[in-house]
């Protein structure tokens, strides 16, 4: 330690105001800096790309054998985005829980005392990171599909629509995960919550629905379909879009938006209680 406090302050400093943009930039830089979530994000994208490549390859082989059953061009990207949704959700939920459980939240509040501003900035960072990850996965797997699956054909408008809906869906899943992580405050709990919500509940309900009376099976199936991952796969689906129209994709997207609103609300309430 060398120097004493000096007269560094200027009139310009006194006029300066903290803005949501500045806080959001700080949060985004923190997310992708060392000690942030860069490793997890790269892993999520890599796993999704790997699965997208594998899926595209399998579809190409299948279509070479039976060209009349060619799947939509976006099929590989749809599968890749589904995997991205799950892995990204785990990464973001753990990150949010870690920030809340350790001292970062307290340190951040000392710098950004308006909780609404801090949370909004934090979630804007999540939105941006999730959107970039989704765009990278969709574009790369889609290009792979163009190269490897010459027999598949879907009009460009549908491809673009699936891409946009896919990015929106990933962003909403990311917000659900961030909200759940912030509300839980502990990484282990966050993983459990996200795992149960995204995978265990829909799979378990679907399995149980096979062996119960039909009225109960209908209820369980409806409930399972209303959980985030089935909503996501229903929304990001070129066949759904072309056969049933945009409503068949937008309605599940609205369902995802409702889930994310609930998760973020829970996060706000949990922080208010702390």
């Amino acid at each position, binding site marked *: *330690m060398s120097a004493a406090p000096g007269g560094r302050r200027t009139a310009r*400093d006194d006029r300066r105001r903290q803005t949501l943009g500045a806080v959001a930039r700080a949060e985004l830089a*923190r997310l992708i800096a060392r*000690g942030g979530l860069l490793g997890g994000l790269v892993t999520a994208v890599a796993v999704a790309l790997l699965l997208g490549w594998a899926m595209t390859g399998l579809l190409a082989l299948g279509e070479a054998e039976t060209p009349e059953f060619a799947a939509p061009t976006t099929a590989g990207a749809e599968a890749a985005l589904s995997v991205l949704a799950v892995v990204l959700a785990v990464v973001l939920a753990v990150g949010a829980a870690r920030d809340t459980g*350790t*001292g970062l939240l*307290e340190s951040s*509040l000392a*710098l950004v005392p*308006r909780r609404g501003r801090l949370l909004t900035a934090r979630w804007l960072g999540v939105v941006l990171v999730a959107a970039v990850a989704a765009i990278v996965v969709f574009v790369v797997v889609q290009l792979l599909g163009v190269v490897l699956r010459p027999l598949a054909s879907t009009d460009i408008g549908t491809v673009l629509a699936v891409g946009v809906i896919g990015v929106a869906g990933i962003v909403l899943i990311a917000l659900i995960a961030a909200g759940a992580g912030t509300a839980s405050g502990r990484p282990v709990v966050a993983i459990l919550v996200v795992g149960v919500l995204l995978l265990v509940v829909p799979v378990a309900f679907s399995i149980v629905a096979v062996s119960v009376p039909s009225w109960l099976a209908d209820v369980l199936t409806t409930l399972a379909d209303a959980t985030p991952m089935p909503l996501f796969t229903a929304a990001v689906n070129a066949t759904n879009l072309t056969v049933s129209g945009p409503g068949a994709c937008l309605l599940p997207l609205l369902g995802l938006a409702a889930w994310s609103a609930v998760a973020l609300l829970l996060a706000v309430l949990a922080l208010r209680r702390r």
Partner: protein
Amino acid sequence: MIDVQDVVKSYGGRRVVDRVSFRAEDGLVTGFVGPNGAGKSTVLRMAAQITRADEGRVLVDGEPFGQAPLPARRLGIFLSAETLPDRMTGIGFLRYAARSQGVPVARAAELIGLVGLEGAESKRIASYSLGMRQRLGIAVAMLCEPSNLVLDEPINGLDPDAIRWLRGFVTGVARAGNAVLLSSHHMAELGLVADRVVMLDRGRVVRTGSLDEFVTVGQRRCYIEALDLDAAVAALRAEGVRAEPSRQGVLAFDIEPERAGAIVYRAGGTLRHLSSETPSLEDSYFASLGAAEATGEQR
């Protein structure tokens, strides 16, 4: 100025802060003392709006901290080395802090140099010693040269050189016209920098005043060294003076040095040293704490 107005905070039905009011004035270092669990950290957290007060409020330069246009310019806070994010690097955390205030990130490197963390800035905070964490926390608090500074136990883990630097730093900040609220268990250190003292016990302010006023709560006493110390002690006690052996001599309480010297002299003793002693902040702290406990027991 930090103006704590009648704040109350309860956890699980237990009131940990009970109608606390005091001011940390501009241009002064206000020492904030009290035993563990007295509620000091809760009050400081309420000042930073990290903890919400059940009742009352804390104003920083006339308004709640949350309404400050540039928070780190209004109030620099360092509450605990434990709240620093372990996974981030020191420079990473400072850059995050700078970006959040719209300050150029180059300021982060300046602060690393200022608090002597060169060479360790790119290491994860998890690998930092307590002293290094303290330095980093102080650096964040200094980010925008704030007009008010709140430091909770900043001396813990600092080496003597850093303690000396911190002493100069906080007095420098205060002399520049800013308010400094400094919580510490290190009474000797606090006695060197504090202009005013606020003492908290069991969630209540039990004593407040300037450092001079605060230390006079301790007893008047004088220190005597004599050739025949046992005889000197006996003579003082015979006159009803409380006398206790201390160092190479004896401490006589509630007596002027002139009278103490006369008693020893009349008893045939030979004085080698006679001086009055001002009680330290630590002495006064324990005297005040004892008085507060006695009052509490009576209540």
